[in-house]
């Protein structure tokens, strides 16, 4: 009898060729570029802004006084940098944009996905995708010339009937170029992206669940409420947050529409306000070295803000599909 020899376990190793190793190194380095660029943006803005941030401390975010006082020989006497007014303005106009834009976008996405006929659907999707490619200066000027007169009228109506709510009150009846109008322009700007994300999410709804709902006698409304919305909830919220991020970082459209004044203004119908990005454009031209550093710090705040909002949004969108009945 011979022993059956169990062969020793061999380890299969393929050593990639030299060319492949090189290829992988190059591609991996290229792949890391987004990390490097984001890191560099953070590093440089922080490096420039650090001095101001150190002087102002946490007050950079909570004070709302941005002033440089000079004497006759244009020597700087004192300088104060507090971002709070513009931070409030950023959040305010972006919030209006989301409150107005997202419901329209989600309902449009429902229409495109579940109501529209094939032909109409393709045309409408094409139009909305085209709108996503429009440059922001176009929205800004259109908002200034075309939307502003009607929006002013709506603002007056809102003020007349809801003026007792503090947000809709105004100190003086000046309705032109208000955060409300800026918010409307931003809402129009984020509609395409919110619509296409919601539509994508809705289209991933499992067909068997939809058909099961119909087979149980559901109307379209109850099917959407029982199947589509629970399934797509995360995606809708994520899309809304992506829109929020866009609206927060918008510069040119807001600058054209809004009366950029450095003051705290949470009364949305009153024509004054701004956001961080418009502050940078407004102050940049005449700023000296120190103030530019302060603007860099403001840019850093904006960068981190949009990064966090976008990050959460992307997590929400990509985590889709594990919920729903």
């Amino acid at each position: 009898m011979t022993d059956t020899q169990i062969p020793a376990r061999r380890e299969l190793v393929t050593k990639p060729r030299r060319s492949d190793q090189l290829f992988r190194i190059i591609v991996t380095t290229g792949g890391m570029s987004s990390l490097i660029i984001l890191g560099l943006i953070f590093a440089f803005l922080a490096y420039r802004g650090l001095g101001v941030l150190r002087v102002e401390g946490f007050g950079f975010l909570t004070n709302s006084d941005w002033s440089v006082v000079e004497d006759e020989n244009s020597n700087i006497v004192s300088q104060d940098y507090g971002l709070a007014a513009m931070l409030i303005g950023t959040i305010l106009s972006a919030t209006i944009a989301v409150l107005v834009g997202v419901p329209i976008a989600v309902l449009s996405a429902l229409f495109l996905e579940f109501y529209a006929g094939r032909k109409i659907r393709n045309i409408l999707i094409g139009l909305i995708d085209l709108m996503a490619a429009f440059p922001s200066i176009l929205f800004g000027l259109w908002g200034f010339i075309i939307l502003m007169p009607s929006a002013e009228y709506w603002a007056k109506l809102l003020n007349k009937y809801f003026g007792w709510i503090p947000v809709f009150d105004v100190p003086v009846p000046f309705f032109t170029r208000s955060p409300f109008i800026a918010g409307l322009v931003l809402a129009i700007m984020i509609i395409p992206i919110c619509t296409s994300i919601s539509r994508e999410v809705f289209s991933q709804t499992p067909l068997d669940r939809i058909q099961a709902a119909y087979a149980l006698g559901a109307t379209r409304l109850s099917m959407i409420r029982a199947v589509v919305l629970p399934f797509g909830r995360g995606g809708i919220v994520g899309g809304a947050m992506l829109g929020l991020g866009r609206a927060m970082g918008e510069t040119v459209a807001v600058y054209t529409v809004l009366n950029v004044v450095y003051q705290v203004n949470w009364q949305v119908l009153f024509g004054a306000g701004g956001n961080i990005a418009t502050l940078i454009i407004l102050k940049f031209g005449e700023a000296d070295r120190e103030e530019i550093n302060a603007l860099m710090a403001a840019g850093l705040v904006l960068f981190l803000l949009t990064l966090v909002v976008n990050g959460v949004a992307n997590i929400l969108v990509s985590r889709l599909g594990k919920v729903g009945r």
Partner: protein
Amino acid sequence: MKTVTIKPGTPWEPTAKERGQKTLNLLIAVAISFVLLYSTGLNGKLGWVAAFFFSYVSVSFIAEYRRAGKPAAQDSLLTSISRFAIFLAIIPIVSILATVVSKGWRGLHWGLFTQDMSEATVNSPIQEGGMLAAIVGTLIMVGLALIFTLPIAILTALYLTEIKGKFARPIRFLVQAMSGVPSIVAGLFILSSIVYPVTGERSGLMGALALSILMIPTVARTAEEVLLLIPNDLREAGLALGATQWRTVAMVVVPAVKSGLVTAVILGVARVIGETAPILLVSGGGDATNLNPVSGPMGSIPFYVWNAFLLGGSEESTQRTWAGLLVLLLWVLILFTIARYISSRSQKR
């Protein structure tokens, strides 16, 4: 024996009676909206739209309620509201297109493409001066941005789809996060990292660098999407023939997605062609034609529009603004149409 031929029916399509009912609803709603318009304080097109919306929603609600009860009526509510929503979403696009074309075409003239603004101000007669500097500047900056973007974006896409390394998930996340970087932050970054410490001068090259930061995520994500569509069989076939990974990618995978990569590039260009904020910060925005991207300010089409809008106030500057916007919009439309055409053609195959 009698044979019965059954005609193929289409029970899902609305019958003539239902269609009639729907038309009737619409007519009633229009009538009610006009009554509302004249009897209350509402006025203007907008007042009519609001009145029509409410009357249409309530008329179709009542009609459905009488026909089939409460659930159907609630269903019709969502139907009419979502129709209204898509209407609201489409209005701005149509209005923007109509405004730009109707206001812009009057400012168009041949000199727009042969002259620059070095000897004209925004308020001089419309025949003087043109967009040459702006168009040349945009072409140079976008072209340079493309050169910087393309290798980085495609390598990123290849890393995500071909190497699928440990970091694929975080990198995908970062690329998406990068697409949300506000354009003004990209401008500030170039300003703080290169313009102030190194060159000390604003130029077209700096503008191109800022634009490429905005372009990379768009191109990388679109390229990744098309690379994911390539069937794995192609890669396996390449490897089974004894090719190295790099040969497979270079000679099988990338040629297979050529048209998709072109789409990615076009979408990237469309993304940045209208960017104004970084141009304002880093490229200086000159009025004279400047062919040298390394020194001297360089203009761009959005900068031309911005200047005419902010510095002007006269009839001529308004015409310049809208003519500039029309040219910009035409660029976007052309790019968009080409991208659509290519992607629809590759889908058919």
